[in-house]
């Protein structure tokens, strides 16, 4: 028997199911895969959010009284793992990357459509496997960092399933990264120069480089850890002469760049959204490109700032302090440029714009606490406390998740051809912004005053502030209701948006909404000025 491979993907595409069924198929269409990533990621966000609510309910009282202590550790481990590997990374990279990058480079699909579909279809089974590990012998309970020897001594089945699941998700991420690099470098429409690409392409190029360089290190580390657990080797097990700090170095060599894998695409997305809704060109395009690449390079050499209390030698602490603090410079450039993009514009105050501005404010706050945490003497006191919890939620929730919502409001008309309700959108923003800040701002104080992270019980003096935080978490949970109502109502009864409701100039809007299977009816347009607002090119539009 011979296996025939269609030389043209369009042949297979015409055989694939139409309508909503295609979202459950092994579709090769980058737009379908993008939506698959987004919806799948959002379902896991709801699971991760439920776990977060369980944590905040437990912490509403100083005693450990809501769930058993080992279950609490499983909940916090699953919460972290799900939110990072199944919600933020797949959505800011996979969902928006797949949907937008082929449009931005003027291609009809990604470079490797089958690899692309494989990358997505690895996610649901590994995610379900991770969640289901709770019902085997209990899920992993060593935190998302899985530090040995704790991860070696806790019940094994949960930890092994956790490792397998993260390995598969890492594989999915690497496949995606290779695909994005190939698509951006090799699939550009003839005549389109690199420096004419929309900023999200640069962000995805930088992110994908980080994915390809650092994720294999995580994979190798976790395989060694699984050997320690299953085969009783001694790579990290101190009883057998292993070194636990080596694990931390290897783990953070991936997991610090992972922060940039989560925020750089968000930086790209906000660079697309702000110019459209403020009707102004993106300020400082060239410096924005260089600052992304600067963050990529610096992001690879700062990992040990997670280990300032692990007994690292002084010179190493000093080097990682300076390197980490210097990331603030390219990041700062980006924020100044975004504010300069707003300055002098004609800003439409809509849901997409509000979430983007909320992102700027939250992220600046998280960035400032980040520079403080980079300082060794500062970090020694607050390391592994609620100060750190607050800091990274300001980065990944206040930063990236705000941009995910902003992007959904911005590109919803592109995907569906319908407009979302602005009233519900602004309500969603208001509840999210208030709830988020109420939840996480007080946690800085908790950390400074003596509450460590990952605890189910704490001193009664911290009860009031923890309750404020829990009320904030409740608001965040409530905020998903107007969002979901808005999505379903708009899909069903939303006003027709037309092809280009925002009069945007980036290439994805220069086709019909929703776009045809191969993106353009004719040839892909050559967009030399994706941010040409205020110029003749924009007036013609």
């Amino acid at each position, binding site marked *: 028997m011979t296996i025939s491979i269609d030389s043209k993907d369009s042949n297979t595409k015409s055989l694939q199911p139409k309508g909503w069924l295609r979202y459950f198929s092994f579709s090769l269409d980058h737009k379908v895969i993008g939506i698959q990533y987004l919806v799948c990621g959002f379902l896991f966000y709801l699971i991760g959010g439920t776990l977060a609510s369980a944590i905040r309910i437990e912490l509403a009282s100083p005693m*450990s009284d809501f769930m058993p202590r080992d279950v609490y*550790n499983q909940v916090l481990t699953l919460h972290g793992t799900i939110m990072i590997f199944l919600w933020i990374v797949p959505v800011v990279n996979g969902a928006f990357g797949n949907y937008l990058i082929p449009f931005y480079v003027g291609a009809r699909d990604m470079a490797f459509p089958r690899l692309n579909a494989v990358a997505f279809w690895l996610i649901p089974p590994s995610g379900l496997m991770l969640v289901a590990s709770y019902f085997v012998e209990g899920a992993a*309970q060593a935190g998302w960092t899985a*530090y040995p*020897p*704790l991860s070696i001594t806790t019940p094994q089945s949960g930890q092994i399933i956790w490792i397998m699941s993260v390995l598969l998700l890492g594989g999915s991420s690497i496949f995606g990264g290779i695909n994005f690099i190939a698509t951006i470098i090799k699939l550009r429409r003839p005549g389109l120069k690199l420096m004419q690409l929309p900023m999200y392409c640069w962000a995805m190029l930088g992110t994908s480089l980080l994915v390809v360089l650092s994720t294999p290190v995580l994979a190798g580390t976790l395989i060694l850890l699984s050997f320690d657990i299953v085969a009783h080797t001694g790579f990290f097990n*101190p*009883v057998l002469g292993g*070194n*636990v700090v080596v694990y931390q170095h290897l783990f953070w060599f991936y997991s610090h760049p992972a922060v940039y894998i989560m925020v750089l695409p968000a930086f790209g997305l906000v660079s697309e959204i702000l110019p459209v809704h*403020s*009707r*102004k*060109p*993106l*300020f*400082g395009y*060239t*410096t924005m490109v260089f600052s992304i690449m600067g963050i990529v390079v610096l992001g690879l050499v700062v990992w040990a700032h997670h280990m300032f209390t*692990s*007994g690292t*030698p*002084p010179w190493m602490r*000093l080097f990682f*302090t*300076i390197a980490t603090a*210097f990331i*603030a*410079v390219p990041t*700062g450039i980006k*924020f*100044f*440029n975004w*504010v*300069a993009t*707003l300055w*002098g*514009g*004609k*800003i439409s*105050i809509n849901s997409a714009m509000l979430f983007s501005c909320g992102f700027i404010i939250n992220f600046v706050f998280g960035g*400032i606490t980040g*520079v*403080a945490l980079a*300082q*060794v*003497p*500062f970090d*020694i*006191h607050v*390391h592994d406390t609620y100060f750190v919890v607050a800091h990274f939620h300001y980065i990944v929730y206040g930063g990236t998740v705000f941009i995910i919502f902003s992007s959904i409001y911005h590109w919803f008309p592109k995907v569906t051809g319908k407009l979302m309700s602005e009233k519900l959108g602004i309500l969603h923003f208001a509840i999210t912004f208030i709830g988020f800040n109420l939840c996480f701002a007080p946690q800085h*104080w908790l950390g*400074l*005053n*003596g509450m*460590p*992270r*990952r605890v*189910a019980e704490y001193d009664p003096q911290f009860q009031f502030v923890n309750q404020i935080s829990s009320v904030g978490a409740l608001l965040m949970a409530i905020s998903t209701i107007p969002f979901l109502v808005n999505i379903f109502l708009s899909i069903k009864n939303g006003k027709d948006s037309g092809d280009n409701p925002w009069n945007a100039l980036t290439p994805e809007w220069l086709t019909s909404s929703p776009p045809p299977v191969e993106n353009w009816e004719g040839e892909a347009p050559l967009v030399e000025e994706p941010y040409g607002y*205020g110029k003749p090119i924009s007036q013609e539009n």
Partner: protein
Amino acid sequence: MLNKNFYLILIISAVFGISFWIGFNVNLLPVEASINAPIYDELFKILFIIGLIIFIGMTIAVIYSLFKFRKRKDQYGDGIALEGNLSLEIVWTIIPSIIVLIIGLYSYNIYDRMGGMKELNHSHEMMTSNTEKIWAGISQASSNEVTSNNLSVEVSAMQFAFLFNYPKGEFISGELHVPVDHKVSMKMESKDVIHAFWVPEFRIKQDIIPGQPTILNFTPTKVGKYPIICAELCGPYHGGMRASIIVEEESDYKDWFNKNTKTEVSL
């Protein structure tokens, strides 16, 4: 034009004024109870003020832009086609670089004053052998220190407790008693998983790593009872892994020490 500049200067000085006022008047930190603490709080104050200036400044810029440049109902078309400004880019590259560099050098200075850059000089009786690698925590030194006067304690951490061994008195305690204003030198070892020794009032924290003895020195300056908190996830009862450090006058400490030594001898 003069008017515009006047308002700008007014707003900037207001931001600085508010930030400095908050920085000097709002205390977010617990009691200072070791030599480290005031040094730490000095760094915290500086970082807090700089952070507030940047945060308040950026927030005002964003909210002002949203208000001032919002699209009015009768408006249509685009904003100005301003694509960048090289001198502005240079300014906001160089100024943050300088700020970051100064903060970095300053925190290096703070860390040095805390003793982080010093060679660890641990008192003799606890050096088991020369080949044993000892990892550095903070090696805090007061100017008038006399090494023989140091209190040496061996700390064992296990799921889910700390034990303090006083080699001189040959007894083990579940509470850490130390005399005020004396340098304490701890050699810490973990029996199982990674733990951490954290006393928020002292502003010190050090992981306790299995298979790797770690040294942490500190000098308490204030009499009182403070919590010792495990800060590294170590299992189901991690949240309950607590002990107390009791800083007392030297005479009280001696009484406690002798009492414990005696019971040990009479057994």
